[in-house]
């Protein structure tokens, strides 16, 4: 539907639980979709990564909420107030189902909020759906493409 499929989708997943990071990596590779995944462990490492202007801007970020050092809501708030980074689609992917976290995330500007599946098979389905929606259907900000091309990334 859109014209953004010319190279593997670059996705960053942020989660403090090493088992969850492994699950996400396995599930995404099981979809066989052309993706490039970067795994990070908390909001602080995400902010450091994004602020490094030699690195390409991701096509989307999967962001956990409860993490040490800097939690997902703080990172979300910083990204959505950042002139260069605010257009990156951010999907909260978390075990938290509290109405407070859901409302807060949308108020801070997350692009959508998803409960982390418990079953591995469901996580594989979810990765397929996320790719179908965010990579194959939705238009991506051109600002990011311009930056990436400038870097010669991808």
């Amino acid at each position, binding site marked *: 539907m859109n014209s953004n499929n010319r190279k593997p989708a670059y996705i960053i997943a942020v989660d403090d639980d090493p088992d969850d990071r492994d699950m996400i990596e396995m599930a995404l590779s099981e979809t066989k979709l052309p993706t490039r995944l970067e795994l990070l462990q908390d909001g602080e490492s995400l902010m450091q990564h994004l602020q490094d202007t030699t690195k390409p801007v991701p096509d989307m970020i999967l962001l956990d909420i409860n993490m040490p050092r800097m939690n997902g809501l703080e990172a979300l708030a910083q990204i959505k107030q950042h002139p260069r980074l605010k*257009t990156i689609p951010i999907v909260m992917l978390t075990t938290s189902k509290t109405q407070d976290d859901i409302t807060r995330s*949308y108020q801070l500007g997350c692009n959508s909020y*998803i409960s982390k599946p418990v079953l591995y098979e469901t996580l594989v389905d979810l990765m397929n759906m996320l790719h179908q929606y965010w990579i194959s259907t939705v238009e991506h900000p051109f600002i990011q493409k311009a930056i990436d091309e400038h870097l010669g990334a991808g």
Partner: protein
Amino acid sequence: MDIRVTNHSPLNIFIVDDDPDDQELLLEALELAGLTCSSSTFADGQELLDQLQDGELPDLILLDLNMPRVDGQTALDRIKSSARLRRIPVVVLTTSRSEADVDRCYELGANSFITKPRSFEDLLDLVETLGDYWTRVVRLPPH
């Protein structure tokens, strides 16, 4: 797919488009996609903003850009600048795919930007993907 979340159903979707034919096609596609939703249509941003000010709030807004009186970007800006309204997901659904429109809408806080396909068949596919995503995968903010 059994991600199935417990969103309040049926979902209440607002469709904002100044073209009655486009409204009609979208409604038909929503119905054919088998979504359990109720939808209301608005002819421009002003109608939408009036409803949001006084009336019931939707679970999701599908927003066209080029409309008379109040255009989509202005309406989007007003929604995302309002502490009361900004949590409502707004999907920009338009024939435009100009770089300026896409970037500006994301900057203003659009939850996603989708270019409206030309054929009804493709629109049907799109509505299925869109509907599946927002009704069965995503957790929507409570009212």
